[in-house]
């Protein structure tokens, strides 16, 4: 186990070293992506500025939601997205098979060896939004709330990684995952907004089959004491458990798909 961890750490180092060879583009990439998100967030700001709130959420609250969303996504995606999104290509071209003939865990190798440090813009933007909005909001700060914030944030990042893993795993049995990723990102956009503005059916969907409601809304609403559909008082607990539970599901599903892959062939 210790050797595996040290191998993963070595992979991360190799990857970061490789990426820093092209240092100049990195900061620009961060700025560009932050700019892209800012364009979208600015549009949302225009709405809240004009109407004073969306679904009962004021601008600082919406800013917190947006910041939480982009920051937790960035952390979860840095370990999974770019590494796994072209899974269907890796399967088709046989580069995935190369991983199977070595005494390593293919998922871990892929994810750690490709760890993505280009999310700097996301992280900066998220932190700015969080830092700006949190002080303005009426949150009953205590050690417990701080812990809740940190744990639910971590859980949200894990949730992102888990969902991306599951979507990519479908490439092992279907030969395609690109379209599913497209659908994931469609729902991912919905997760930026206060859940109650969508009808009950969609709310239920976003809390069960496509648990992206737990990505930002449930943890932030729990923190702010806003109503959470279906979960009510258990929202805080739900926010903290969502990630680990999704991770368990992802581990199972990945193994299942890998077994099918080896049985059915790419």
């Amino acid at each position, binding site marked *: 186990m210790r050797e595996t961890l040290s191998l993963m750490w070595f992979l991360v180092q190799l990857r970061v070293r490789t990426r820093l060879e092209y240092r100049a583009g990195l900061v620009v990439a961060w700025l560009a992506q932050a700019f892209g998100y800012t364009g979208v967030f600015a549009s949302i700001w225009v709405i809240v500025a004009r109407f004073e709130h969306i679904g009962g959420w004021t601008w600082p609250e919406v800013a917190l939601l947006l910041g939480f969303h982009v920051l937790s996504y960035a952390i979860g995606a840095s370990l999974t997205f770019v590494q796994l999104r072209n899974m269907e290509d890796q399967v088709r071209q*046989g580069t995935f098979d190369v991983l199977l003939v070595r*005494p*390593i865990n293919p998922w871990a190798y892929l994810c750690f060896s490709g760890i993505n440090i280009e999310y700097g813009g996301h992280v900066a933007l998220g932190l700015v939004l969080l830092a700006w909005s949190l002080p303005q909001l009426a949150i009953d700060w205590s050690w417990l709330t701080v812990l809740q914030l940190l744990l639910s944030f971590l859980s949200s990042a894990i949730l992102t990684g888990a969902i991306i893993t599951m979507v990519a795993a479908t490439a092992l049995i279907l030969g395609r995952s690109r379209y599913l990723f497209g659908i994931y990102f469609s729902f991912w956009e919905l997760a930026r907004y206060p859940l109650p503005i969508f009808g009950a059916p969609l709310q239920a969907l976003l809390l069960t089959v496509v648990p992206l409601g737990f990505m930002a809304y449930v943890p932030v609403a729990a923190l702010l004491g806003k109503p959470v559909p279906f979960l009510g008082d258990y929202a805080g607990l739900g926010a903290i458990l969502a990630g680990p539970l999704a991770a368990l599901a992802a581990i199972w599903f990945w193994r299942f798909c890998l077994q099918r892959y080896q049985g059915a062939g790419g």
Partner: protein
Amino acid sequence: MSPIIVADHVSKTFQQRVRAKGTMGGLRSFFSRHTVPVHAVADISFAIAPGEAVGYLGPNGAGKSTMIKMMTGILVPTTGQVEVLGVSPHAERVSNARQIGVVFGQRSQLWWDLPLSESFELHRRIYRIEQARFDHNRAEMLAMLDMASFIDRPVRQLSLGQRMRAEIAMALMHDPKILFLDEPTIGLDVVAKDAVRRFLAQINRERGVTIILTTHDLQDIEHICPRLIMVDDGRLLFDGPLAQLHAAFGARRRLTLEFAEDPGPVMLSGAEMVGASPVMREFLLPDDGRSLVDLIAQLGNPPGLRDIELHRPDIEEVIRTHYQSRQAS
């Protein structure tokens, strides 16, 4: 000595999706879908003893890669069993992976942007090779494959020949018992191919590393593998020493006779006349042991015989003829 690799009535069938062509076909596929079974490997059996070097030959789509994938644990046979070092490579994927080395000709395991030495170091950690053994093996490989000049260069700056040498060296770093190579000489220039072949032959003969090599290039086999397994359409066609290939395929020799003037009818028992011009006669005859001397004697004494040529087809021709007759049928 028990065999190190056993394939026992192994078959592998895939379901292939069929897609229609053209704009209208594209729209039609919109509303229907069907799959056809593809028998990539059909009932193949063989046993390989430790220390053997075996060439696995066949045209594209013959099922070579599929067989290698089953032997390295990537795929599971649909029916039948594969055993490597006594266990199922699929069931014991990780522990099996520690004992084997795999080189994919067209899929590199090297880190593109970093010096070659980093890829070696990564390999050491993946396979958990102790430092002393690693240093010793590394030094040896560098010497045998003449890599000292580029060990510190980024992989992207290396030529294909250098990269292939590095891949093979790396695959042997952890002293595997079996080395699998999937088209290792593809795309290499003549000098690089020669270096790779000589090296592989050397480590097989001197260190007893079992080698399984898939290839299109017969010279790879001639230089490295005394034994040849040939497959086509998923089926086993031939398994045995290279030397017996001609007999197995009923390959025929070509006898060409040149005359000063038209000799009239020329007869030769057990031979088929395939070409004739006023001053030339051509025969095909089986590999029946008759030497050129015997044949001249059996011809009698045709008038004006000026020159004789007896041509024995090389492996390429044998196989090409076989493929052509397969396509014709």
